[in-house]
């Protein structure tokens, strides 16, 4: 992927003693972990343990009350969010797929959803059309292109959001429970895509409840406990082979 030695030496994403609370309710408590370039990492934990909040902090939608969050050696904080160009760079480099697809679709058609990001990036019309066609085909929703997203089923909407984010070609894909609501074939297709995506040198961070999904991805599991603290951060044996193959 043409990265420098310096870029490879620094973790891509780094959480260092991060804590966060909504009002009086602690949601993230002193969590530290790092994600390296080209890794697939899975955030695991019970409902309400803070996985989604960690992802929101990663993307600059929330800001840690204490501790630091770094992306490519740059601090992700309120100052970065206020810097328009830096924020846009972050959002292009880190694509975030929400847990609820309804919260992410705002264009009149599926085709426009997929075209929104590339058009924002100032790509030529032909390139935008190419990316839209490729992204829709990747998730097997080319036939849905002219349809309004709100008319689609939950699983179809999920695939549309995936296509809409992937069309921006982010370096990191952050996905909140990406296989929820998908049938078995669609879930397998998403899994296969994520593995291929990581093999191309990109980074994937998912949150999930499904252990078999983690195994299929060959992901490094990072477990968050009910007390919102880090429980474990391990490299599974099945991931070792996948990392070597990449």
């Amino acid at each position, binding site marked *: 992927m043409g990265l420098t030695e310096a870029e490879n030496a620094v973790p891509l994403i780094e959480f260092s003693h991060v804590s966060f609370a909504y009002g009086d309710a602690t949601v993230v408590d002193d969590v530290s972990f790092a994600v390296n370039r080209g890794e697939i990492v899975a955030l695991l934990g019970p409902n309400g343990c803070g996985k989604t909040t960690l992802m929101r902090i990663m993307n600059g939608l929330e800001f840690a009350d204490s501790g630091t969050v770094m992306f490519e050696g740059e601090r992700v904080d309120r100052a970065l969010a206020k810097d328009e160009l830096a924020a846009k*760079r972050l959002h*292009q480099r880190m694509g975030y797929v929400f847990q609820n697809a309804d919260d992410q*679709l*705002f264009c009149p058609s599926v085709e426009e959803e997929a075209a*929104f990001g590339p058009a*924002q990036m100032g790509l030529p019309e032909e390139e935008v059309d190419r990316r839209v066609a490729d992204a829709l085909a990747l998730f097997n929703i080319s036939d849905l292109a002219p349809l309004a997203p709100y008319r689609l089923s939950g699983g179809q909407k999920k695939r549309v959001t995936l296509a809409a984010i992937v069309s*921006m070609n982010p370096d990191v894909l952050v996905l909140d429970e990406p296989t929820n609501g998908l049938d078995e074939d669609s879930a397998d297709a998403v899994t*296969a895509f994520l593995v291929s995506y990581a093999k191309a040198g990109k980074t994937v961070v998912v949150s999930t409840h499904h252990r078999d999904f983690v195994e299929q991805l060959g992901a490094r599991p990072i477990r968050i406990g009910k007390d919102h603290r880090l429980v474990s951060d391990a490299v599974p044996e099945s991931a070792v082979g996948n990392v070597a193959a990449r």
Partner: protein
Amino acid sequence: MPQPDITLPSWLAQREDYRPEHDKTGFMARNLLHLTSMVAHVKMGGGAAALAYGTGPVSPIDRALSHVSPALRLIGLLVCIALTLIAHNPVFLMLMGCVVLVMVALRPAAGIKATLLPSFGAAIVALVLAIPAIWVNGAVAMVSIAAKILLNVTLVLGVSWTVPWNRLIAGLKLFHLPDEIIFTLDLALKHIEILGRSATRLNEALVLRSVGRTRGRFDKTTSSAGVMGATFLKAYTCGQALDEAMLCRGFTGTYVCRRERVMTPAGIIYLGGIALLVLCYLLLG
């Protein structure tokens, strides 16, 4: 089980070398995000959440008052507001000030901030609006108006901080409001919060994907309109889903709102306190 290899398109297998541009209309999405976040904050006051879920410190006075029926608290609030407004004797106003001060002072910092900040804001506005009173009654009238506003707004905010909206609305049953109106008010507040949150998330999605310069069919006005349209659709589907859910639970067309017991020991003590305040007004007036 090894996953089949998928051939990625050439652009996806490469690193994007993207340099974003400034966008003059970027403020629109951010302001919309701020507005929808505020709407989403129409929810249970922090004190009510702490009382209900034990998520934070609670003042002993608020804990005691939580045992009083919200309907009684509404009546007490109205009586206090009326007495404060019609009082002429500054001693009575000082007495009310002491009562309010004790109630507020025992709250946690978040509760003090939630009740006092808006109250002072309202009092300052009242002070400014009452400036012409200087030429009629001197500065005393102006200060008196501001003080009354401060006391009354603090009392109202104290109730909203500590009593959940749904209990407050259910308390309206004491005033013989039809059950259907109480139900409609309840639903309206619930859906304001739900839709506010939904609109906030949609705006966040818009901000996350607005990585460059808006142009053509993806200009910010169109995108923001899309967010509002999606929120409207969500409102429509919420309404439909609610209708179906009620049907599935045997709704016959009549909504029965359960009424809380009013004359509990705590309620009687509370009424006694209000009566004492009325007596003080009559003596000091």
